[in-house]
């Protein structure tokens, strides 16, 4: 630290020094130890501060001022914390109204029970006609595979496949052990290439190819495919 910097900081020498960090204080002290000129200025600053501080503080307080103040206060109104109270009241009212609103909203809202969930889970919402209608609405009218049990249907999607929009149906057994993905392809748009019925792919996936009323159903599956299909009499 140079003399010029130190002289800017002399005011901090004997203060609480919140404004100086520890390295600055150390550098200041170190400089003052080895620079007699700055040390003399610091001492002069210190003496000036002491003299001025003592003079500024040297004010005689009138005797009897304290009881006079207390007597005056006794005649004055005490403060009412109306703002905090008003804020608390506003919050209370807001919470009450909010609670009432929620209660009103919940009043007509039916409770969901375990029995309801079971009924929904067992409900056969999806069947062949619903799937075909849905695909038709998606712009890919096809006849869905007839040999699957639609209670096992998990998803009906329209997949992008080689630039074509292709229906994709995913079935899964309830125990999750059998999963099948069915692509419904039009022979007019696709040829099967090296795919053939009964192929085994690396891993546990197998391929079945079903020709069904003008469409080719390419089935990728794992597990027991029969668990996903309907019995002939169904």
């Amino acid at each position, binding site marked *: 630290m140079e003399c010029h910097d130190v*002289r800017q900081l*002399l*005011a901090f020498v004997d*203060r*609480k020094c*919140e*404004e100086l960090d520890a390295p600055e204080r150390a550098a200041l002290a170190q400089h003052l130890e080895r620079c007699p000129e700055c040390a*003399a*200025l610091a*001492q*002069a*600053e210190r*003496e*000036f*501060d002491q*003299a*001025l*501080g*003592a*003079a*500024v*503080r*040297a*004010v005689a*307080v*009138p005797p009897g*001022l*304290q009881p*006079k*103040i*207390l007597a*005056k*206060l006794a005649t*004055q*109104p*005490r*403060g*009412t*914390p109306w*703002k*905090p109270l008003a804020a608390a009241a506003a919050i209370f009212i807001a919470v009450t109204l909010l609670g009432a609103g929620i209660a009103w909203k919940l009043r007509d809202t039916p409770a969901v029970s375990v029995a309801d969930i079971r009924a929904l889970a067992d409900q056969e919402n999806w069947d062949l006609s619903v799937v075909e209608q849905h695909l038709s609405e998606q712009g890919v009218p096809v006849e869905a595979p007839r040999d699957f049990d639609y209670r096992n249907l998990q998803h009906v999607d329209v997949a992008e496949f080689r630039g074509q929009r292709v229906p994709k149906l995913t079935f899964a057994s309830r125990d999750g052990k059998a999963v099948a993905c069915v692509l419904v392809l039009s022979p007019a748009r696709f040829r099967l290439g090296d795919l053939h019925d009964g192929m085994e792919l690396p891993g546990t996936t197998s391929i079945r190819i079903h020709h069904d009323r003008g469409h080719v159903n390419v089935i990728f599956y794992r597990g027991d495919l029969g668990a996903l299909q309907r019995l002939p009499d169904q």
Partner: protein
Amino acid sequence: MLWFGSARPAIESLVESHYAALYRYAYRLSGAAQEAEDLTQETFCLAQTKLFQLREANRAKAWLFSILRNAYLHKVRTSKQEKQVSLDSIGEIPDRDSERLSDIDAAQLQNALDELPEAFKTPIILFYFEEFSYKEIAEQMDVPLGTVMSRLARAKAFLRQRLTDRAELVEMGTPKPQASPASGEGMRTEGL
């Protein structure tokens, strides 16, 4: 410590702890005993009505000083009584010399303080009086820390010059005319 809803004992406690310091501060600000007494009383009356705003006991002193300062500024604005002179005569803060200041005459000091605009007087009083830190002064005056440091340095230089010059003049037996607005010095309170 929360004093919410129990103003009476707390205000008495505040009076006991701080009335003397507040009076001294008021005296240095106003330069008059009666005005200082009025300001001190007014400060505690205001504090009593606003006591619910004080949530931390360790902020009480700064809070009371702030109330007093605002009361003083209100009076000044109402009566336009503040004597203000420019610090231009000081120019930049001069290099320190090692000249020592001997005993300071109380009247000289008050006269010199009275010449300072409030924006400079308050930092110097708070700095020397109650040893408020720069940061606390900045918070109380609601100005940046650098502004406080600048004002304090300039006010200190002003006082050093005034008190030193007069000490020399008294020794020489020659009174020196005081700076005043009438002497051609304009008023400047910011950017010093």
